[in-house]
């Protein structure tokens, strides 16, 4: 059973970080964000190298980035930027994290457009799509291991999958119905398990 020990005031006294440093750090991160593992890279840069956040503050930041909607690396950047330098910092971190990746992917897309006439291009991309699907499946399997082993969450996951996947139901309405139901179940079923 994990006990919450006296919590350090995360937001009270962040070290003075200039916007330039913030931008530089997140540009670095944006460039190194190959193949996931972003949380690890960010930890290395922000906690170990720059020491802008301590271990606990970083873990809390990561939790917030994962629970709120949006791509986790971008959320992480935005929330760290926000903590260190407010909304301007969040904007700087947002741009730093996305700009390099955007430039690279658009360059790749230009190459793709030049090569789209060759059948080999589509064959290669078909293969790469398989690896992309594999990494999505891996992520889905890892996330589903964290689900409680009780019927309702499992049924919810299967229901959402069937509706949005095989049955092509529009995603937004499905989510708008499923989330309140799922949260309601979790709220009234929570005594059954311990947190962690």
């Amino acid at each position, binding site marked *: 059973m994990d006990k919450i020990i006296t919590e350090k005031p995360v*937001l009270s006294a962040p070290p003075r970080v200039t916007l330039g440093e913030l931008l530089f750090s997140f540009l670095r991160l*944006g460039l190194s964000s*190959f*193949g*996931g593992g972003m949380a690890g890279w960010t930890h290395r840069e922000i906690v170990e190298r720059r020491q802008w956040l301590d271990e606990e503050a970083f873990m*809390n930041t990561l*939790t917030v980035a*994962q*629970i*709120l*909607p*949006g791509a*986790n*690396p*971008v*959320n992480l950047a*935005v*929330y760290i930027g*926000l903590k260190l330098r407010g909304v301007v910092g969040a904007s700087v971190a947002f741009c730093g994290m*996305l700009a390099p*990746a*955007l430039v*690279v*992917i658009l360059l790749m*897309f230009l190459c793709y457009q030049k090569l789209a006439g060759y059948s*080999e291009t*589509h*064959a*290669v*991309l*078909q*293969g*790469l*799509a*398989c*690896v992309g699907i*594999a*990494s999505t*499946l891996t*992520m*889905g*399997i890892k*996330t*589903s291991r*964290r*689900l*409680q082993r009780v019927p309702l969450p499992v049924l*919810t*996951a299967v229901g*959402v*999958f069937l509706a*949005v996947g095989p049955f092509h139901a*529009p*995603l937004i309405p499905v989510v708008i119905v499923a*989330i309140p139901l*799922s*949260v*309601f*179940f*979790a709220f009234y079923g929570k005594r059954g398990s311990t947190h962690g």
Partner: protein
Amino acid sequence: MDDNRLLRLIQICVPLSLVSFGGGQSIVAGLQHQVVDVQHFLSAPAFTDFYAISRSAPGPGTLIVSLIGWHLGGLLGALAATLAIFLPSSAVVCLFGSFWHRHREAAWAIAVEKGLAPVAVGLIFAGAFTVIQSAAFTWKEAATTLVATGLLLKTKIGPYPILGVVGLGYFTLSYSGLI
């Protein structure tokens, strides 16, 4: 450039951004459905190509919308689509991040966290299913995906060596006329 189509892409991206619980992969099914089946911005094979590029490139896989934006409206389209998919969720982080952090031990917050997980899982698998469908899988793709999933789950091999080997393999097969 077609302003109308770009506007519709933005209208698709903003709500998806706000419900992308569990990360960018959870909205792939919804995105594919809207841009391929409903709006006919691109064909299913083109979507598969874009998906493959976005999953092989650095950065979040959600950048696939930047490619769709480029496809519809060049550089401006790419920028507009990128902002449409990342800004709303980032605004949520700015507005609710600290709020969430303060209340994370509350009973309702724990229920929200637990309640979101099954929905995210369902959406992530729906995304994989949708791309499998749009990629028109045969035994070859199924085998590749299974082996790659096994490697990613059971070994410490990262996605990049796997992408390299698979890319080279498919190129060779295609070049020698086998696929």
